Structures are given as C-alpha cells and as structure tokens.
C-alpha cells in the first residue's frame, strides 16, 4: 500500500482545500458530544474524539428518507439524487468496518439504489483512534482496517501517516502534493510501531468471540434473556446508534388531495414490540426478552452465519448510550460463563 506523510500543521489546509471542491463531513464537537456533520469554515474538527453519537450510517441510510412521490395515474418520481463528490473525514477503523458490513446488506443481491448513490459519491478518509473503556474492536477484529477507505490517517503526533487505499485517494494526495511528503523514514515507522503497541495495551473491554455463534445457538432457550430484558427499556437507543443496525420500515403518506403522496422509509428497531407483529395479532417475538435476544443473535450469530463476520464491530456505542447501562459484552460473557451473574452495570 502506498503511504505518505502529512505534517500535522498541514491537516487543516488539506481539509480546507478539500472543502472547497466537495461536501466535507467531519467529526464536530457539540456540548459534551461529538457528531458527524458537514464542515463549515472555521468549525472545530474533533481530531481526538472517542465515538460519535450516531455512526456514519446516517449519511448513507438517513434516519428518514422519501423513496418516491406518486400521483395517481402518473407513476412515480424519485427525489433528485444528491450530486457531487462528498468527502467523509475522520472515520475510525470500526466505523469503516461497519460500512463494509452495510455494503453486504445494501449492495449485494438487490442493489439499494439510494444507498449506492450516496456510497459511490463519498470518499472515505479514516482516522486512527485510541480506545476508551467501552471499545472492544480488538476483540471483533475491527481495530485495524486495510481496505474500505480512500485514505487513512494515523496520528503520530507531529505527522499523520497516510495510507492510500484507492485511486481516488491517490488523486487527492496528488492534487495536494505540496502538503504531503512521500518520504516515510525509519523514525516514522518506529513511531507507527509504538503507536500500534501502545494502542493495543489501552483496551479494557473485551469480548471472547470464540465459538460465540454456537454458544448463542445453544443458549437460545436461556432464561437469562428475559432476565436482562427486565432492565431493558426497549427505547431503541442502541439500535439507532449502532453503526450496523440497518432495519427500516416503509410507509406511505397520502396528501390532502387524496391522489398524490409519497412513500418513505425510516429507521426502526427489532426491540420494538410491533416489529414482528403480523396482521391478526400474531407476534413472532412476543416478549421483550425474545426481542432483546434477536438483537444480539443477529449481531453475533445470524450475520456471522450469513457473512462470516459478526455484524458487531465493537465500537461500544450501544453500551455508551444505553440509559439502563446494559453492557452487551457483559451479557454475552455471562451467557458464556455463569449465567446467574448480573449483566447490568
């Protein structure tokens, strides 16, 4: 892989220039949180953030979107697709892995044209990170990333080591070659190695994933699910903030004239009671425990069985955002070991 070096002081000019020709998305600080948002001149880019509240998915699968409008007898009109190149800066490795998981869902088989258009017009610039006590990407094998980005920046203090992951990424580097240096010397390599080993020492949270899908299958009937569910508010905050939760519902809204309207989709969660309810009142997951189980099964077993990787990328958002303090790593660990252990922090 081609690597170059960007001196730290050149980052802002680099992004500033990109912003002139593209819609640039960056991590921004708001209050005590960091969110991904469009860059505006002079805005504070959070370079050392831990995790954003909503993951990058909101820019590819928006929380709500109109699929098409219709008028009786006249067929369907899709909303004008957004055009122009977008550069999404600052994704951590887990979030890049998460996008790759979403690609499986939305680009394989039937192609989700809305997702594809947004994905195709977006360049990804990754950014290295340091874990906090909720990150467990090292357990999920998503702590490092070798593809799925156009550029990847590793923060080595004075400089960023920049991995080039695509021709588009290469073009960006070439266009701004005055800001980067092609020389990756011994000292930088050494710093990179130090960074990697320091970083891996910082992980606190872990999840033993060996045989996890099998264990989950065997623990299907465990009373533990209902026990954890007693504490679950089923608020859906974990699903919304998970970078790989992609469930959505589709609904129509007719206009006052009764002859035109629109069809939209919006995020939903398998934790909601109506999620598996069908006409006639039959609910395939009638209890909160069954719904909570579905969420974890899908992440760690079902998706794994479909794609060979877990849907969970270990970003820690679900635990960080759960008002009840439920820690899914602990739930899964308890399930693996002593199931009477309390899983709620």
């Amino acid at each position, binding site marked *: 892989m081609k690597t170059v070096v960007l001196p730290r002081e050149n980052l802002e000019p680099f992004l500033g220039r990109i912003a002139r020709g593209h819609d640039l998305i960056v991590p921004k600080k*708001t*209050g*005590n*949180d960091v*969110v991904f948002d469009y860059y505006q001149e002079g805005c504070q880019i959070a370079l050392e953030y831990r995790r954003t*509240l*909503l993951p990058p998915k909101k820019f590819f699968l928006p*929380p709500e979107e109109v699929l098409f409008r219709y008028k009786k007898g006249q067929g369907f009109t899709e909303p004008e697709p957004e055009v122009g190149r977008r550069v999404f800066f600052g994704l951590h490795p887990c979030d890049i892995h998460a996008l790759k998981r979403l690609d499986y869902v939305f680009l394989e088989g039937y192609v989700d044209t809305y997702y594809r258009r947004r994905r195709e017009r977006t360049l990804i610039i990754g950014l290295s990170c340091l874990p906090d006590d909720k990150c467990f990407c090292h357990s999920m094998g998503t702590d490092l990333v070798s593809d799925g980005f156009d550029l990847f920046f590793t923060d080595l203090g004075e400089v960023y080591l920049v991995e080039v992951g695509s021709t588009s990424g290469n073009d960006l580097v070439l266009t701004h070659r005055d800001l980067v240096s092609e020389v990756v010397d011994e000292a930088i390599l050494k710093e990179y190695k130090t960074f990697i080993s320091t970083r891996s020492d910082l992980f606190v949270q872990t999840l033993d994933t060996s045989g996890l899908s099998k264990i989950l299958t065997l623990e299907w009937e465990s009373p533990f699910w209902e026990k954890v569910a*007693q*504490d*679950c*508010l*089923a*608020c*859906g*905050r974990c699903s*919304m*903030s998970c970078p790989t939760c992609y469930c959505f519902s589709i*609904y129509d*809204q*007719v*206009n*006052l*004239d*009764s002859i035109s*309207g629109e069809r939209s989709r919006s*995020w*939903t*969660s398998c934790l*909601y*009671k*109506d*999620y598996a309810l069908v006409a006639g009142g039959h609910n395939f997951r009638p209890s*909160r425990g069954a719904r909570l189980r579905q969420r974890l099964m899908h992440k760690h077993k079902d998706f794994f069985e479909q794609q060979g990787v877990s849907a969970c990328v270990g970003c820690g958002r679900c635990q960080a*955002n*759960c*008002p*009840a*303090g439920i820690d899914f790593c602990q739930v899964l660990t308890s399930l693996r070991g002593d199931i009477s252990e309390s899983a709620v922090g």
Partner: protein
Amino acid sequence: MSKPRIGIYGLTSCAGDQLVLLNCEDELLDVLSAVDLRSFVMATSQNPEGELDVAFVEGAVTQDSDLELLRDVRTRSKLLIAIGTCAVWGGIPYLSGRGVPISQHVKVDYSLPGCPIEKKQLLSALSSLIHGDLPLKLPYPVCLECTIRENSCLLQAGEICCGPLTAGGCGARCPSHNRPCLGCRGPSLDPNYQAATKILAKHGYDVEDVHRKLALFSGTNSSKEGRQVG
C-alpha cells in the same frame, strides 16, 4: 368520492388539540374544503351535526354532560378518533380524580395522543382519513427521535426523563430543548416502568416521586404498573 362528514368536539380539556387545528394556518382552508365540516363549535356557529364519517373528540370525560355528548357523537359516527392525551389516557383531568379517557365509555377507532397533538401528525391523520385509511400508529418511544437528533441522554445524566416510556411523534421536543420528557404523549407501545424506576432509584430518586412523575400524563396506564416496583 364525496367529502367525508367531519365533526370536532371537546369534552373537558384545555382546547389545545382543537387549537392545533386552528393553528394549521397554512393548511386550514385546504383542510376545511376537503371535508364536509358538520360540527366545530369552537370555530363556527353553523353546526348542522347529523350523521358523521369521522368524529374527533378532545378531552376527558369528567361529567355527565361530557358523557352524553360523547355517546351521542359515537352513535352518529362511523369512526371516532380520540385526539390529545386527555381523551386518549385521561391526562391531567385523570390526576385530579375527575377524568377518564373516552375509551372507557365508547369504542375508539384511533388515538392521536399528545399534549397537545402534533400539527404534522394531525394533518397526516386527516389526509389518511380523507383517503379512507385509519392513520398509521407510531410504534416507537420518544427516545428514537431523541437519539436521531443526537441529543445527549438526560436519563443517563440522571434526570427523570420519560422518553423511553412515552409514545414518540413529537420529535423529542423536550430533550431537544435540553428538558426531560414529561411523558405528555402518554405511554408508548411497550413501556417498561419497572426498568425506568430502577434506573432512577439508582440515581437516588425517591421511588414515589418517580411514580408520580412518570404517571403525570398516562392516567390509567402507568400509575398502576409503576407501583408494582419498589
């Protein structure tokens, strides 16, 4: 398709839900011309009444005259829609020991909760009804909209936020203003009062206070369930 015959009625309430309709300044005249308005005492003195396709009823039942009106409206209407938390759950009239939700007396075909109801939902419900459909139900609690707006969670920060127990649809107005949700839209599809009480007890709140707060708008529903804990 002939215009649906519509009546708008208020029982005991603050008239907020009827006012929300009058507050649809941009759409009001379109709405009124898309329906055959047969009763709206708050807005017009010409109320021919008679058979209705859809009746909207605001307010709780607190007195015999409310009940009489409600029963009369029910017998005349194909569909009866409860609008506002007072009508749907009893709301504040319930707390004063006086009001009950209208569903305790007559069949309610659809409930549009909110204190007051949301303009957007009212208009979308009206459009659906004119089209011949019952409006969609929103299955999610306030937390969904709150999370989508990327608000910091107030419950996590130790405030009594009723978001996880409360029917969504308001766009998480309060948490988006940095104010905890009071539950003004009444219970969500699947409120877990026990879990919420447990969390708040951990944050050091008095369990009785929590119950009272969680039950502010949900009348019959939460006051019972919430009390099973603690």
